[in-house]
């Protein structure tokens, strides 16, 4: 589904990602693990095509096609989308409108279903605005609901577990499984080892380098036992 091949990303004089390579199979839940500042979000932005995150070297290949030069919206049309770690506020736009934006066919029932999937009551939330009247947690859930409603081919979820208490974590993980059940491949970015437990395979990023990749149990074990300070690479 997605292949990252020798990806190097520089911003200013700093190299953020150093020759990263890994592949994500269709239909799997793939983890990107690493401590804060490792480059995980930068990798997500590079996959999505955010401004300022064009690879300096290497390739991003999605369903057999190189997408390095495609703009964000074109990648989204192909089926890639991103759930932000901190979602933006949109003054004047209702939750219903926001969730509907990415849907090919607008359908209120599906919007309502997507809200229920993130444990938000449609009756209470559909008409609310996606602005500062919503808490950060509520906006995060609405962001995930929008991803669900979009039915993407590849969903990149940037720390959907951040700011979420331990009781809600299981619900978020269940939600990730449900997105996959609808046909999406999921890249789950997290710095929490417990959140990584639903992941099948994973890549561990440390200071912009690929430290370990493969079976998630081994990667998570490595992360938990050795990656308090990931090794420096020259």
């Amino acid at each position, binding site marked *: 589904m997605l292949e990252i091949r020798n990806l190097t990303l520089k911003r200013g004089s700093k190299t953020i990602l150093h020759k990263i390579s890994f592949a994500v199979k269709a239909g799997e839940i793939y983890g990107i693990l690493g401590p804060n500042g490792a480059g995980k979000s930068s990798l997500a932005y590079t996959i999505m095509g955010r401004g300022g995150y064009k690879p300096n070297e290497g390739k991003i290949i999605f369903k057999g096609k190189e997408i390095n030069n495609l703009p964000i919206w074109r990648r989204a049309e192909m089926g890639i989308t991103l759930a932000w770690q901190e979602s933006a506020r949109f003054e004047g*736009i209702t939750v219903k409108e926001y969730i509907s934006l990415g849907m090919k066919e607008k359908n209120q029932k599906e919007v309502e279903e997507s809200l229920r999937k993130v444990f938000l009551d449609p009756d209470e939330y559909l008409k609310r605005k996606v602005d500062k009247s919503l808490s950060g947690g509520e906006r995060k859930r609405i962001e995930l609901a929008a991803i669900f409603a979009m039915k993407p081919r590849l969903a990149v979820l940037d720390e959907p577990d951040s700011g979420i208490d331990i009781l809600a974590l299981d619900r978020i993980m269940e939600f990730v499984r449900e997105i996959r059940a609808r046909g999406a491949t999921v890249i789950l970015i997290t710095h929490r080892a417990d959140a990584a437990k639903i992941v099948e395979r994973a890549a561990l990023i440390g200071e912009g380098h690929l430290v370990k990749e493969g079976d998630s149990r081994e990667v998570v074990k490595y992360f938990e036992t050795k990656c308090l300070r990931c090794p420096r690479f020259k």
Partner: protein
Amino acid sequence: MKKDYQAMLEAYRKSGGKPDVFKYPKSAHLIISQNKILGRQPIEGIFLDAKETDNGADVRLRVKKGVRVAYPAYLCFGVLPKKGRQEIKFNALVEKGAEITIFARCVFPNAVNIQHIMEAEIVLEDGASFRYDEIHYHGLTGGIEVAPRTKVKIGKGARLIADFSLLKGRVGKLNIDYQAEADDNGILEIAAKAHGYGEDEIRIKESGKLFGEGARGLIKSRVAVREKASSEVVSELEASAPGAQGHIDCVEIVQGEAKAKAVPLISVLNGRARITHEAAVGKINRKKMETLMARGLKEEEASEIIIKGMLR
């Protein structure tokens, strides 16, 4: 006269209004085209009338003490020909404990060389409540100058909500000067929204004086300018009594070669008063744009949605 009346209703409809409101028997209304009164309907408990002048009309409104007008009143002012001038003087007195909502639309569908000047003086006695929503609809040529000047006195415990929108058609030249002052526990909420393009010029000055104890004020503006349009928003709040508090909130989005300026002016003259402000002027936040683009929207579609949401 009948032809003009129908034409005003049609312009009212194009502005987004429902002309049927002028048939409601329980709602007061007034329709003035240039300097001709084309329709009027008073109702029990309020005095709403106008006198034609050379260039417009003198309008008087009085809501009697304690009367809570159940249904909104509807005003429609405008100029139908391409050229013309309309001067409206509006005097309103909302007596003690009275309450009224007015939905006003000012329509200039064919404006090529039009001036619309409005001088308003509004007094809200103690405990009164006055809501005034004004929507403008201008033609597509930008040949219009609009200059509303309003002064409002808000009595003890009285409330003013004033909302101005100019989102359809070209702005032309807009020069708003809105001044309000609030007594003890008085509340003022003033909002203005405008979307300029071409060579439109938007000048908004909204000022509030919270001189009464516990008075509160909110001044809000939302402006989007593109192409070669320009905007300047001056938002001024002064709090000079204990417990007086207010907030200024200004957002201006700039695209193309447009220019925007925001000037929040804050005076706190009492140690127990407080005013806060927030202002954001510039291009659309990149993260917002990219969030919507990550849903499949192109850049122009994303910016349109964000601006529309902001101007709602």
